[in-house]
């Protein structure tokens, strides 16, 4: 029988894995298991153009005409419920199992919900295509939106909703939004975009609860303030989809624990994308990266590991972007608390700048707002510097 690789999770990381397997001339069976009924689609537009109604389903499909030659066996609308590592088989919700010589874990992450929001209409999270379709329908009929959480997804939903003409309030527990990824100074600069475009941003404020019976009517803050809302979007981060692996013997932490190449503690099992907590020598710990480019690029390395190709791993220079209120934000590198942010081009006031983060006088990360050309050059430079240093 020809060898089989089972890919669990039919999204960006799963599809990229299938492509990488064929790129490496693997010609066995590839079975891709996905609990959503949809073929792989792109998530970033779900908070941007797709939510705005300017991108169609066809626009956001990830598959390219070349992918038809990959010869994939799709098992869509099917949930993996367990992994028997000794028998190397993936157990499925329909009672069947898939015996495989290699297993790729690419189950991504899901949006965290607010406790107590179950069963209340008008309260949404945004992770899947179905989430986006429902939210878009509700936004077109609504006047007031409250977004809980001013992270990237929260900020993008706020921006899109403003574009649709809604009155928007964003509530953030932290004193400064995006301080985690960008540092407090730059987080504050990016958060100014909200006020520029008429979105009210309340920071340092917790949410006490949601008000309404049957349907949400308001969000109550810890200081007692009531924010009336027709629709509430909860954007408070994501949790890795790894519960189904409990008891499988695969080591879990904040995600599936892997070495720098993506290999888990079980031979023949690798993990990629948002569900993987990959060992980072630079950070000296496992890091779970929730960015598109990571899910796109990481599979090439993990597939090499799976197929036993012992080549060195290029140290990654993480990259992500965000589009808010017409501003393009791009970030690359490994920033740590204490790195010094220096504006090297443009100005924050003009909403067009390039900032370099330095540690001991050396650039370690770069942030651009509306500076794609210069940003691209800096990102390349960082990659060469990191490659040279390793």
């Amino acid at each position, binding site marked *: 029988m020809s060898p089989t690789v089972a890919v669990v999770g039919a999204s960006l990381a799963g599809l990229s894995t299938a492509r990488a397997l064929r790129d490496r001339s693997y010609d066995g069976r590839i079975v891709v298991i996905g609990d959503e009924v949809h073929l792989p689609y792109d998530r970033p537009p779900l908070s941007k153009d797709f939510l705005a109604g300017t991108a169609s389903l066809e626009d956001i499909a*990830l598959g*390219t005409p070349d992918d038809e030659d990959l010869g994939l066996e799709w098992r869509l609308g099917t949930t993996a419920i367990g992994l028997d590592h000794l028998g190397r088989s993936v157990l499925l919700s329909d009672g069947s199992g898939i015996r495989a010589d290699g297993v790729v874990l690419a189950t991504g992450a899901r949006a965290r919900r607010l406790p107590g929001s179950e069963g209340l209409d008008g309260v949404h999270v945004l992770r899947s295509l179905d989430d986006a379709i429902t939210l878009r329908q509700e936004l077109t009929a609504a006047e007031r939106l409250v977004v809980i959480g001013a992270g990237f997804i929260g900020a993008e939903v706020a921006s899109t909703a403003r574009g649709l003409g809604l009155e928007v309030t964003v509530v953030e527990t932290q004193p400064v939004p995006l301080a985690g990824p960008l540092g407090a100074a730059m987080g504050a600069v990016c958060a100014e975009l909200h006020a520029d475009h008429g979105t009210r941003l309340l920071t340092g404020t917790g949410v006490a609860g949601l008000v309404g019976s049957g349907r949400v009517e308001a969000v109550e803050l810890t200081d007692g303030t009531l924010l009336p809302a027709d629709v509430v979007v909860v954007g408070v981060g994501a949790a890795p989809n790894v519960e189904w692996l409990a008891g499988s013997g695969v080591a879990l932490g904040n995600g599936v624990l892997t070495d720098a190449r993506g290999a888990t503690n079980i031979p023949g099992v690798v993990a990629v994308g948002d569900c993987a907590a990959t060992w980072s020598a630079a950070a000296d710990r496992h890091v779970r990266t929730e960015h598109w*480019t990571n899910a*796109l690029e990481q599979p090439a390395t993990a597939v090499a590991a799976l197929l036993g190709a012992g080549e060195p791993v290029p140290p990654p220079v993480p990259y992500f972007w965000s589009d808010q209120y017409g501003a*393009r934000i*791009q970030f690359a590198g490994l920033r740590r608390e204490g790195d010094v942010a220096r504006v090297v081009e443009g100005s924050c006031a003009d909403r067009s700048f390039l900032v370099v983060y330095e540690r001991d006088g050396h650039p370690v990360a770069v942030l651009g707002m509306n500076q*794609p*050309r210069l940003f*691209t050059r800096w990102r390349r430079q960082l990659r060469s510097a990191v490659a040279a240093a390793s």
Partner: protein
Amino acid sequence: MIPVCPTTALPPGEATRVEADEPIAVFNVDGEFFAIDDTCTHQDASLADGWLDGCAIECPLHASCFDLRTGKVSGPPAKTPVRTHRVVVQDGTIYVQPGVAADGAA
């Protein structure tokens, strides 16, 4: 024909954008000039801002690659090619002919 710039203003490895009905990106690859649609076919990014590697341009946003000679996608996520445009150099000035493909097809 749309004038772009003097040849001396576009050294090897550089790119520039010209406004036309659809903006056009013009590249200098080791002394040879190429012109393609500037807007990436994936989403909204200017390819003139991208990274030039030989005859391939990598989009600055999500790294789709296009072949400057043919406009074809050489790396996803983009699914559709960009159009190429003919480039003419006359008296030290670069011109593009929008709507005329690099291989001469209209």
